[in-house]
């Protein structure tokens, strides 16, 4: 079954993972800029990372017939340093015209601090000025519910960003309803220990429907699984859900949201 994994960090994954994903039916991925597991020491580190995301990684994906798209930002875990964030934000416009760049992401909050919020607002303003789509990271675990609300408030304060052009990722049972009710798209991340398991993601789809929602693996350098999306499909089939429902959340919905960018052409 063909699918799109709309959030995965392939810079942290092996070439074998690309091969296995292609064998499982993955036709396209989108890779948001994120934290490397350590703080970069300078804006130059981000410049090199953006080159990797816009030049190196698409070529690696193409070897397996997978289309590679990306999102650029300084992630919230490195956003406490306002001077660094300002310098990194200044780099982004030069990359926004690259053919695989869909927008600004994954922006958001980590510990819900005032500096993180300031940098989030600056990213939102950049997305507004460049008419870019936004992919949002919501905080982890105990910080998620509060952070998700602060993030949605910040987007709405901007006033020019349509919620239909913003995807709020990593929703769980305590945030999904607010996100959908406020008109945003939402993503469920399938992780072994944190965020959603495939079973809980299937539960959420049953409870909240299949409109404006997708699933992703967010595979990275931590405890994660680049095949989590097809594993969730198996869970849904096991319960009696149809191939059409699975196609809706893993192919049609990603195409609809991402297709708002003229650069997305995974038809």
């Amino acid at each position, binding site marked *: 079954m063909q699918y799109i994994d709309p959030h995965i960090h392939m810079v942290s994954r092996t070439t074998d993972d690309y091969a296995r994903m292609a064998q499982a039916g993955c036709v396209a991925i989108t890779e948001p800029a994120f934290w490397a597991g350590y703080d970069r020491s300078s804006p130059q580190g981000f410049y090199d990372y953006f080159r990797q995301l816009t030049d190196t990684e698409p070529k690696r994906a193409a070897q397996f017939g997978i289309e590679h798209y990306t999102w650029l930002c300084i992630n919230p875990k490195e956003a*406490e340093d306002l001077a660094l964030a300002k310098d990194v934000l200044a780099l982004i416009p030069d990359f926004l015209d690259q053919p695989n760049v869909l927008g600004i992401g994954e922006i958001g909050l980590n510990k819900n601090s005032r500096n993180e919020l300031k940098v989030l607002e600056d990213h939102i303003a950049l997305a507004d000025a460049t008419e870019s789509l936004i992919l949002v990271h919501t905080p*982890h675990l105990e910080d998620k519910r*509060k952070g998700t609300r602060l993030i949605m408030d910040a987007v709405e304060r901007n006033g020019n960003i349509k919620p239909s052009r913003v995807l709020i990722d990593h929703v769980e049972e305590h945030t999904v309803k607010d996100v959908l009710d406020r008109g945003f798209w939402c993503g469920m991340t399938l992780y072994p220990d944190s965020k959603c398991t495939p079973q809980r993601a299937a539960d959420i789809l049953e409870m909240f429907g299949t409109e404006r929602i997708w699933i992703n693996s967010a595979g990275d350098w931590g405890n994660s699984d680049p095949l989590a999306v097809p594993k969730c499909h198996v869970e849904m089939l096991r319960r009696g859900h149809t191939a059409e429902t699975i196609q809706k959340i893993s192919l049609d919905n990603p195409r609809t949201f991402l297709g708002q960018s003229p650069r997305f052409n995974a038809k």
Partner: protein
Amino acid sequence: MSEFAGTCPLTRTQVIDQYFMEHRAKLLDLAAFLDRIERGQPDEIADPRDDFRIAQLLDATKVLDDGQGERARRVLEVFSDPTEQPLESAAGLKGASGAWAGHPTG
């Protein structure tokens, strides 16, 4: 009746048949984990509830059999930071512990 009644395509018996063993094992893991804490070498934790994470974990177990629905949402809310204002600074902070440190213990 929950607003979500009937949303799972399986019958209730099918759900139990399909998932019981998996969740029986998870419950035993939780029980053994709590036993393991008590068997640990003595330190400042006199009672598992002295740790805010375990206090919230035990509070969350009360949700499981209170007769109300939406247990997953309510368990997540037990662990969540209930405040609304941004933190003054995140300097030196990166990760999350899985439970809110401001929760009263004991």
